[in-house]
């Protein structure tokens, strides 16, 4: 394959080279440059711009951390564990695929058989100190149980504060209020999936 077309950077006729003066080499030259820059009055140009914008009262700065920018639905920050919409139970079935696929080996879980002979996840932990937020766990999860969320601020006294399973799990009141967000990133169900599901022919 020919790469020339990609290497050619002259994409527009209006491009031109900036005329940059050569750097002074001798002491006298340097002295002249300092004097020139000092008494040119450029400083007041900048001060004027600031003053002008202040008087206008049209400020676009986001007042972080009081204010936050909205984050894309596919953003991959600290994990979230989702609940089933219908019953409110945890979606995680403890299949262990996230643990297996994790390339930085930061997920660990323990399961057992519970009183109703169902598989129960007794412990679940993600070591965020190791996690590289690659999104494989969310991708492999057959139940859309583990996803990435938008909580990107990893500042706390301890890293362990982020790996509490209870913190990752959707609060039950948030679920009831319909506030659980489905992750739209890789691994999520494509839109209109319901229409593509074929039904089993039931001949009886």
């Amino acid at each position, binding site marked *: 394959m020919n790469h020339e077309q990609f290497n050619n950077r002259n994409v527009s006729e209006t491009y031109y080279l900036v005329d940059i003066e050569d750097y002074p080499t001798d002491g006298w030259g340097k002295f002249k440059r300092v004097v020139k820059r000092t008494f040119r009055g450029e400083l007041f140009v900048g001060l004027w711009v600031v003053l002008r914008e202040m008087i206008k009262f049209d400020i676009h700065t986001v007042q972080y951390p009081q204010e936050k920018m909205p984050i894309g639905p596919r953003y991959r920050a600290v994990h979230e564990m989702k609940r089933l919409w219908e019953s409110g139970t945890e979606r995680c*079935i*403890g*299949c*262990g*695929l996230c*643990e*297996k696929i994790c390339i930085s080996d930061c997920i*660990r*879980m*323990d*399961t*057992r*058989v519970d009183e109703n*002979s*169902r*598989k*129960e996840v007794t*412990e679940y*932990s993600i070591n965020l100190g190791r996690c590289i937020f690659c999104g494989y766990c969310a991708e492999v999860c*057959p*139940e859309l149980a583990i996803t990435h969320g938008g909580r990107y601020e990893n500042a706390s006294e301890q890293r362990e504060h982020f790996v509490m399973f209870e913190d990752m799990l959707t609060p039950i009141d948030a679920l009831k209020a319909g506030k659980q967000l489905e992750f739209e990133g890789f691994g999520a169900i494509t839109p209109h999936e319901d229409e593509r599901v*074929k039904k*089993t*022919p*039931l*001949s*009886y």
Partner: protein
Amino acid sequence: MEKLINFKIDGISVEAKKGETILNVARKNGIYIPTMCYISKTTPCASCRMCVVEAKGVEGFVLSCNTPPTEGIEITTNTKELEHERTNIMKLYDVNHPLECGVCDKSGECDLQNKTLEFGVSTQNFSARDQARKIENWGLINYDPSLCILCEKCVHVCNEVIGDDAIEVKFGGYSSTIIPKNSETLDCTFCGECIAVCPVGALVSSDFKYSANAWELERVPATCVHCSAGCSLEYETRHVGINGDASIYRVKNNFEFASLCGAGRFGFDFENRDTSDETAFHKAVEAVQGAKVIRFSSMITNEETHILQLLKEKLGIKLFNEDARKYQEFMKAYSSISGKKHHSGSLDAIKLSDAAIVIGTRVATDNPALRYALTTASKHNGAKIVYAHPIEDALMQNTVTQFMKYEVGTEEGVLALLANALLKDADLGEDERAFFDALDLGYLEAESNIGHEEISEMIKSFSRTKNHVLIIGNDLIAHERALNIAKLAALIEKHSDFSLIIVPNEVNTLGVSLIADLDEDEDCIDVVGYNAKGNFLISSLKFANLSVGALNQQEGTFVNIDNRVLPTNVAVKFDGYTLSDLASACGVESKNTVDYTANLNPKSGFKNINFDSLSNFLSPLGKDTRGYLLDEVACEMNGKLETVSDLPEFNGTVIYNSNPVLQFNGYTNITKQLEKDNTLRGSAQFATAARISDGDRVEIRFGTQMIIREFKLDNTLKGTIALNPMFDNVADASRYKFEKSKIMRVSHE
């Protein structure tokens, strides 16, 4: 030379031996035919019909798993029609199969999963009304009928290889299930072989259920340590909890060709969690240096035995191990007649035999692998199996063709009678002929209670058989007349076509007897016990002065009943010192324990092979490539038979020190899953004679020992001998197992 059948599979010329099926030949030649229900070690189940092939000139499809080829036939394994047929079978298997692969224990190693993907079944074309099916909990085994595909592997294995015959198919079309045979719940020896062969997650281990997944477990190839069969197994390990260390989760085996009993499968968690520190180690060094004796058990690797032998040579101490010493003496006497060091038989020889005599061992509990081999011989070759023992064994009842009940203590007489009958027409030496001529047959028959008719019935049943095996158990090895018995056994092996197996008691009794120079046990002080009794205990069990790793925490080799040197590996780490460290501190130069593997006693047939060069697996066609077989060693033939004089009599209350199913030793005793039934079990007849009844606490006195146990009435037992378990370390396993005893009822305190 056997005639070979020449035919073609997919245009490739192949040869079949007599008795081989098309599938066997195809697999041998690397031609793939899919199967769901086929398992090499049983007769074909022929329930899946996946293995269909086309034969030229034959209308319709042929089942390759149970059809032998004919000369010149042309077989095709892969056509459009066959593909369609097989895909349809897979579609039927998938009808209503629960979509719970996410949690199923079998997921990742499931035959149904593999084949569904292989045949690309992505939709369900057929349907049936699903039924409510109850998950059954059968103790160690859990059965989920909705996952079951009715391949019948479990039933075939249970019946043909294990011999329990505990499960069967309840036929009923779509509602067919596997049910316990003639019983409400599963009543069997819990070998767990049905779990191993189950291609789906229908039969699973209750303990393992939902605790881990196939892909998370690390497999450690090892050798089972509970009996002398040395079965191959894989410990599967994984971390415990979030931050825990590796621990064994389950045991698997190559179920296609090999079997495993329940002790191997469920009794894996005997590792030593204690640690040993420096102070304890220094005390141990002092103890060993000041000791006169090291007493050790046969639950030890060859390498460590070698280290003990080096310690003996360096420090001039004695080595006690009665179990191995008796075996050593027995084999020495055997060699003096046979002229060779090792017995000729093997477990494979039993599987191929069509006539076997078992004497002096309760095989089903002493060595389950031996029992499975006998069952295989019985079911596959219709073998005649003569079982000579004072106590009948209900577990062997389906297998044994003739039960020969002899009086306790008369083993020498019984073997003399057998030898006399088997060697009637043999070409014997003068002395040997004179020995048989001098036998007082009438006296022996009367004392041992083996009638002339019984012997002639046995000879008659053996008349058309070709492959004979004689299996000799611990009752003969530990007998006070063991040496003469050994010579008689050697004589039978030498002058008849019988191959001989002398069953070692514990995992490495045989290995220890070949390596260590043992002294006769005596009561003395300054004894260091290495996994055995002593003043200073170095042990992998509780109450040790210095803790060491258990056998699943060590690498090394064992010698099993087949005279095969088998490697085992570390499944769980032990945090502490080893015997090798101790020996180094005592001046025996050593690095790692397994460095000695190549230096093991060459005079006993050990080869100069490094530990890391020993393989530990079965080939894809089932050939045993584990470790190596000991070289045969020629011995001097200077043994003379002694005349059989008076046979001892055991009157009064007699107990037999014999473990219940799945219990073997102190290690099986500490496992979580295995049942620990340490009651004295006896028949109703015994209860009447001893004047005790079910549930009584009784005091048992035998030899110098006194123990208190609960008495349990066991309806499967007959006669006047009760079974006293010894896995809880109350009885010395190396002694003759029948004991005259006094049994008294004690009141509940």
